[in-house]
């Protein structure tokens, strides 16, 4: 509850900070303070200090899983703002900085709802609170036609999927014996599901699939990610996606967990298609930004494996995956924003002029590719292990690793450009603090890659020992 209230209130504070000061640095620091406060507030929630004793009437349920996911999301946002916060100012004349930050906080509020919802209504509210600010952020580069197009496309597609979701929720409501939205009382658990339930379930699967850009509902993703200002693409592709994924897992675990055999095949097919389309299309991209958009689809495919298997390993793994994926992708985007040329050629010879940038970027890419010694390896390990643990869908596991091998192709193209090709990669202004932070993030990824337990154990023990 702490996180929801703090993020909402801080969003309003951010909005009005624009009146008090026009200085970018001051506004940015306010945002950083807010994020730290959020992290602290969420941690207090984890260890049992509830600052705001609100009776949520069982509409929200604050379990460790959701709150841990919140911590990951807030920590990633903090790193994101520290790394790329300045870039938001660059859009400034067209979009007041304070408002951008306010919108980011509102998105975080939505994510906190999605990670801890206990009724389908709250899920719906959360998803909408996430989506509407994102439509605005996507179009924040007002004079740029591509940004406008992306925003409109995102809006139309988003509305469509929202409609589907509402319909699904209505069907489930109609089918539930007690007439309730609460996931405790929906009464889904019987082996035989009525057609009404099944239709509702599938509609929810489709609409959530839209939001996490699972194929074949991914068509908006490349255009939106490409058209939006890069700094917001980074936010959408990582933090938002991870947050919604947590809600996705929560929905299917808590609500539909007992009827798993009935929907598993649908998820398996969606996963396979997502992996295939994401990876194969990424191979043919010429722009790194677009490649990252497809890579985010491919990574979503891997995360869907957790949805397929929903067991202890999957829930632990999705937290690790969210952290590993967000850290690495935020890092790459932070470097990408600094590049003058977004194509692969634009990275040629980066290692010669900026060895630190190239080295950290390499670690991020290796992590995304899932090479051992990086967090990405254990993230993928958990996903694969969780499916193998279920004892079914072995073909999907094989297919997933073959796709992972394909992903090496496009991730390594960037490494090849940076290290083995000649050229003078143009980089915009670099501060020592930026490089230092990149090194910290890279070190964090390696640390998680050697001792993934640091994150999982530490967080769990922190929670249980208090």
């Amino acid at each position, binding site marked *: 509850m702490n996180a929801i209230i703090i993020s909402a209130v801080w969003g309003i504070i951010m909005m009005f900070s624009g009146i008090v000061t026009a200085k970018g640095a001051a506004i940015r620091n306010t945002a950083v303070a807010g994020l730290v406060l959020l992290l602290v507030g969420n941690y207090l929630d984890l260890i049992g200090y509830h600052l705001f004793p609100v009776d949520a009437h069982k509409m929200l349920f604050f379990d460790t899983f959701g709150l841990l996911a919140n911590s990951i999301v807030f920590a990633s946002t903090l790193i994101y703002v520290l790394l790329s916060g300045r870039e938001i100012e660059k859009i400034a004349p067209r979009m007041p900085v304070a408002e951008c930050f306010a919108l980011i906080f509102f998105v975080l509020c939505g994510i906190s709802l999605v990670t801890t919802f206990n009724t389908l209504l709250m899920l719906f509210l959360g998803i909408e609170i996430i989506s509407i600010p994102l439509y605005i952020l996507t179009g924040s580069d007002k004079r740029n036609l591509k940004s406008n197009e992306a925003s409109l496309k995102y809006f139309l597609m988003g509305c469509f999927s929202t409609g589907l979701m509402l319909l699904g929720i209505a069907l489930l409501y109609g089918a539930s014996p007690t007439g309730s939205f609460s996931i405790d009382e929906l009464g889904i658990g019987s082996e035989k599901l009525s057609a009404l339930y099944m239709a509702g379930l599938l509609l929810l699967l489709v609409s959530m699939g839209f939001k996490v850009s699972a194929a074949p509902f991914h068509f908006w993703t490349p255009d939106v990610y490409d058209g939006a200002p890069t700094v917001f693409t980074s936010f959408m592709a990582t933090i938002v996606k991870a947050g919604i994924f947590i809600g996705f897992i929560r929905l299917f675990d808590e609500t539909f967990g007992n009827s798993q055999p009935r929907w598993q095949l649908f998820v398996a097919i969606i996963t396979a298609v997502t992996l295939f389309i994401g990876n194969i299309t990424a191979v043919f991209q010429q722009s790194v930004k677009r490649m990252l958009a497809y890579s985010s689809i491919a990574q979503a495919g891997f995360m869907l494996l957790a949805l397929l298997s929903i067991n202890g390993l999957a829930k632990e793994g999705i937290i690790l995956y969210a952290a590993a994926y967000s850290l690495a992708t935020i890092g790459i985007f932070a470097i990408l924003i600094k590049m003058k040329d977004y194509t692969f050629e634009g990275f040629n010879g980066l290692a010669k002029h900026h060895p630190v940038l190239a080295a950290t970027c390499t670690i991020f890419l290796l992590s995304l590719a899932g090479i*051992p*010694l990086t967090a990405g390896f254990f993230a993928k390990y958990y996903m694969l292990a969780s499916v193998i643990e279920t004892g079914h869908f072995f073909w999907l596991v094989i297919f997933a690793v073959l796709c992972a091998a394909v992903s090496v192709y496009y991730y390594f193209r960037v490494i090849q450009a940076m290290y*083995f090709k000649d050229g003078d990669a143009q980089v915009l202004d670099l501060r020592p603090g930026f490089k230092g932070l990149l090194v910290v993030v890279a070190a964090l990824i390696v640390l998680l890659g050697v001792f993934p337990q640091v994150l999982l154990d530490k967080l769990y023990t922190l929670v249980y020992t208090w």
Partner: protein
Amino acid sequence: MIPVLLIAIPLAGGLAGFFIKNEKSARGWSLLVSLAALVVSLWGLSLPANSPLLNADAAWLPALGSRFTVGLDGMSQILCLLTAIAFPVIFIATWRDEYRKAWNFYALMLLSQAGLMGVFLAMDALLFYFFWELALIPVYFLCSQWGGEKRIQATFKFFIYTFVGSLLMLIGIIWLYSHTADHSFSMKSFYDLRNRVGGREQLWLFWLFFIAFAIKMPIWPFHTWQPDTYEQSPTATTMVLSGIMVKMGLFGVIRWLAPVLPVGFWAWGDTASAFFIIPGMIYASLVAIRQDDLKRLVAYSSIAHVGLMCLAIFATTTSGMQGVMIQMFNHGINIIGLWIVIDLIERQLGTRKISELGGLAQKAPALAILLVIVALANVALPLTNAFIGEFLLFSGVYVSKATQYNVVFTVVAAITIILSAVYTLNMIQRVFFGNTNALTEKAKDIRLNEKVVLAVIVVLIVVIGVYPKPMLNLTKETVDLIITKMTYKP
């Protein structure tokens, strides 16, 4: 203690090496580090097999059931010794090679040494996988950064091939792990799996592992990355690749495939031997005869030799397995010797084409003598180390009870010995004898450092060739253990 040192010394030395921004000191530093590793390896050899210093164990990922368990048994001893000898030899032999940003080159070389040591020492499947990948990454950068003209594509092909293989192996490892009794990655739990995993499962699990190892060895038809990569890599890296890294594949089969999935291994033995290994050996030998480029010639000859070792593993006999152990070491030494000679020729004359060379023996008599010895070892002439190895390998295949085609396999595989004599002697003749031409007229004899390393290699060749007993004793225990695990029938 000792295994940890064997990994930690090159690892720390390599990481430190990135910061020595001076070519000469970096070179000296890497030689020093690799010599230190050699000393530790010799220290390990001098200890009795039950010494507590030879094992180390620490908690790593308790929740996953994986521990940092490393240990030196007979097989690890031999391969670690090979690795520990190879690196100083490589550094000295390529002392005069120039590299851009040499400190990075040497640091990456040391990191790959750490990875290789880890592969040979790991007694935990997940740890093994970790090091398996870790050995690959530095080599990828080494080849792509400092190699020949087509290096980027060639190395990338190599990387993708190996990565696909290792991912399949990862699935196999996770699958086996989820079926262990105590949810553990330890070698012991994996060896106990033969009671729990049925024959039907072993049949397909075999391929998940075998493809990974076959790519690394390489075995036809998974070999296509190899000649290109050997040709395009800087020679120092080629030595690592061919001398040590191909042993990772053989090692993996012996430690993680044959004893873990004995039924699958036995069931597919004939198929793998008759359709992949033996045709591959013949094919590689025939291709080697037609090669004009020295590097490619050695690359193809290596496929034939490694194939023979793999054939002997499938034979499941004590003598064959002993042969594999000793031959892994010998092949590493001999092929590094060949690469050193090729590197000398290329550096002096700027070409590796056999057709452009000739009469070198007149200009470089010392080099010629040393090369002839190494080359004869490559053909497995008596009194050389490879003779012992190949004799054991063939006798192992011949007496094998695991296959009913043992005689056919022996005879057909023996053809490659003749073919190997054809291409090796042909190479010597055309490069070293005959008339000099305009190019080879300028050739000079070898210098002291090169004499020293080649002499070391020749001494090893002759000593092991005459007195192989200590080596055979060293690996006896491991061989017996593996053979008992392999001959298990449910």
